[in-house]
């Protein structure tokens, strides 16, 4: 049905996909697996027309095609169900299902009765009972995901791509989805199924494709592999050099959390459940988990961004206290968070390097209420040198720096607050290999100076490279803790996968 021939895609000189060749035959369910960053999303975005420019050829029903937009791909019969929900919250169920494909009466009005009939039929296939006029904002996440699926079924497609379709739906709803996939397959359609849940893959798929680092590792029949082999193929790279020198670790606990739970602010579900862990001075603790495991929520809760937790106790620097309620308070006590989204949360892009770097410590740069230019400049100079930030002058707009240097500016901003605990959320996302190493060195340096460090990452090699201990999270809980030297990628991945 679809063949990919030597597909290559680069972003700013970094290969996201390299020489990818895959066959997606008709009337088959193909499992597409790989770690975060392996290139699955890029591949799907090319197939569904999100990225119109790439190298290589895409063959669809025997002819070479190049889709210009998602709509273009859809019109020719390739539909993708995205992991993120693309529903309009204040429109009703039926309005969302037909968004952009409304049925019209001959007089140009909306044919609501007919749309409702069709929608009704779709939802019954999904075994979903809903009032069609309910605004989507009032539905549960799982129901929204099913509506997303219904939207895709509305269009008669020959290829249906499902990206983690079951990440938010319950067991019984999963079975409805299985039935639908079986129907699709029986009517000769191709289903590409992306999921981390091994159980589902082995139930559903006929074939598998393993991607790693933008390349195809193997394509084969599902019946010929077992779970362990699949996981090995996903991981299977030479392990990065592990840290041996750990004399910096002390037994002075700097941060301790017991039974931390956090409820969702709007829905009746738990974002974090009964988390307990501690962190010592000089120690680097890694936190691993798949998307939605609650890693960012954990850091944000500690940093005072999520309000008061539902329950739990907290002690910081050997002092029992209530959880921080604002970043201002957290920083004053010496807890810093380098956020995940450096452009959205870390930097004020319109300001220059100096102003960004000094933003958190301006009060210490004041002289009788006036900002002391000289001291601000000195502070900047000091961090630009220490962190080897490459910038022409500190008056440079921070938006003009490369990703790695931007990240260093954010890091410098928080290091300037002289924290006792430094938390980093995906500190090397989207930056090049060399800059990555530099960031790792800086993190190790800080730990050696006696800071407690927590690093959240979805890249295992990264955690193996810097962490002394690894906490694995899944569904808002800590499922396992490893000493890094005792862990393997397989055991960690096992603990991070749901259903086990």
């Amino acid at each position, binding site marked *: 049905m679809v063949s990919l021939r030597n597909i290559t895609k680069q972003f700013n000189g970094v290969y996201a996909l390299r020489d990818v060749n895959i066959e997606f035959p008709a009337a088959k369910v193909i499992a597409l697996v790989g770690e975060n960053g392996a290139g699955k999303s890029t591949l799907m975005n090319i197939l569904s027309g999100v990225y119109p420019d790439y190298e290589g050829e895409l063959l669809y029903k025997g002819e070479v095609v190049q889709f210009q937009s998602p709509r273009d791909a859809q019109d020719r019969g390739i539909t993708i169900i995205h992991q993120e929900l693309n529903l309009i919250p204040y429109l009703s169920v039926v309005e969302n299902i037909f968004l952009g494909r409304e049925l019209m009466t001959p007089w140009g009005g909306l044919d609501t009765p007919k749309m409702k009939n069709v929608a009704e039929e779709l939802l019954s296939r999904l075994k979903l009972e809903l009032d069609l006029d309910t605004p989507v904002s009032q539905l549960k996440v799982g129901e929204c995901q099913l509506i997303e699926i219904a939207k895709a079924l509305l269009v008669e497609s020959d290829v249906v791509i499902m990206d983690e379709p079951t990440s938010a739906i319950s067991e019984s709803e999963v079975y409805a989805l299985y039935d639908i996939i079986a129907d699709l397959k029986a009517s000769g359609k191709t289903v590409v199924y992306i999921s981390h849940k091994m159980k589902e893959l082995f139930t559903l798929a006929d074939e598998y494709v393993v991607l790693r680092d933008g390349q195809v590792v193997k394509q084969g029949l599902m019946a010929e592999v077992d779970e362990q082999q699949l996981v090995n193929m996903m991981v299977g790279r030479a392990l990065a050099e592990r840290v041996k020198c750990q004399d910096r670790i002390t037994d002075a606990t700097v941060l301790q959390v017991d039974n931390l739970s956090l409820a969702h602010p709007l829905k009746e579900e738990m974002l974090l459940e009964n988390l307990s862990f501690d962190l010592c001075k000089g120690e680097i603790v890694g936190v691993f988990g798949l998307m939605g495991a609650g890693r960012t929520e954990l850091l944000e809760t500690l940093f005072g961004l999520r309000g008061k937790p539902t329950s739990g106790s907290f002690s910081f620097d050997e002092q029992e206290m209530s959880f921080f309620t*604002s970043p201002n308070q957290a*920083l004053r006590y010496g807890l810093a968070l380098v956020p995940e989204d450096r452009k959205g949360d870390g930097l004020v892009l*319109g300001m220059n390097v100096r102003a960004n770097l000094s*933003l958190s410590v301006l009060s210490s740069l004041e002289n009788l209420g006036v900002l002391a230019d000289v001291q601000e400049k000195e502070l900047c100079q000091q961090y630009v040198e220490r962190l080897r930030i490459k910038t022409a002058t500190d008056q440079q707009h921070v938006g003009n720096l490369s990703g790695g240097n931007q990240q260093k500016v954010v890091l410098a901003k928080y290091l300037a607050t002289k924290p006792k605990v430094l938390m980093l959320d995906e500190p090397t996302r989207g930056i090049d290999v060399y800059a990555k190493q530099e960031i790792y060195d800086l993190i190790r340096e800080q730990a050696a100076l006696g800071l407690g460090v927590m690093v959240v990452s979805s890249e295992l090699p990264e955690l193996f490279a810097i962490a002394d201990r690894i906490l694995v999270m899944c569904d808002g809980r800590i499922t396992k803790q490893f000493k890094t030297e005792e862990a393997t990628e397989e055991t960690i991945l096992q603990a991070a996968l749901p259903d086990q």
Partner: protein
Amino acid sequence: MNMSITSYKKQLQQLQPLIALFLLCLIIAIFSDRFMTVTNLWNVMRQISVNICIAVGMTLVIISAGIDLSVGSVLAFAGAVTASFLSMGVELPFFGVYLGFTTLGAILMGIAMGGVLGLVNGWVITYFKVQPFVATLAMLTIARGLTMLWTQGYPISSLGAPFAHLGTGWFLGVPIPVWIAAIVTVLAVFVMRKTRFGRYIYAIGGNERAARLSGIKVNQVKTLVYMLAGMLAAVGGILVTSRLDSAQPNAGMGYELDAIAAVVIGGTSLSGGRGLIMGTVLGAVIIGVLNNGLVLLGVSPFWQQVVKGMVILIAVIIDRSQHKEKK
């Protein structure tokens, strides 16, 4: 080489509004011999000072990525409060005490009142998360209503020679309102360039979430910004009241639009994070000269409004195209 060309280009861009002002003056002077007279120019400056006071406050608000539509009404209310305290004082009903006010006392009360209304704006915006546009739109109506209640709809006049001197008098050969506008400007430039508070305003307007994550007390800073805008509007109200020797209940109607226009012509971005006080002052001067020139040239008042609107549009379009170029 490349560097020096860009910096030269940058300097030229900063001069653009000044060049525009110069051309504007030149054109008006060619067609009207009354424009370039000392009396007329001081007169223009005197009129502009009120808008400068308001627009400087507005600049702070807009750089913080907000907007304040209530300044015109706050101006009227502060003027009425000052005038009534001056002419009648206050009788405290429960104590049977009569309080008279000195000129300075009444002025301070007026400014304080502006500050209180601004504080309410800031509180509604930060605590209840109401959009600035909506919160200050409500305050525009509320403050106007309060002014009507306070004055019962009648002007309060005859406020005494010392008070009238403020709006009409001279000091060292320069009208007093011009001094006041100049002091407000210098203070604001200093605050924006040299203090933590100023830096925080830019940071919040540029990226509020990053500012919060950097430990800035965003709500506190924003509330203070709206309070300052209210106080500066009150200063404008006191100047207007003093010049007319009378507090009009419908004073300051539409002034918020002139203030926003000055800010926008001055190159401050309505999306926040970027802008300069001096730009706003220049914007206010351009609007003032334009108003004066159109009157002197005998342009119909209807056309005057059309021209003013077009000048605002042109200024923004030029500014927009330059910032696109940068990217």
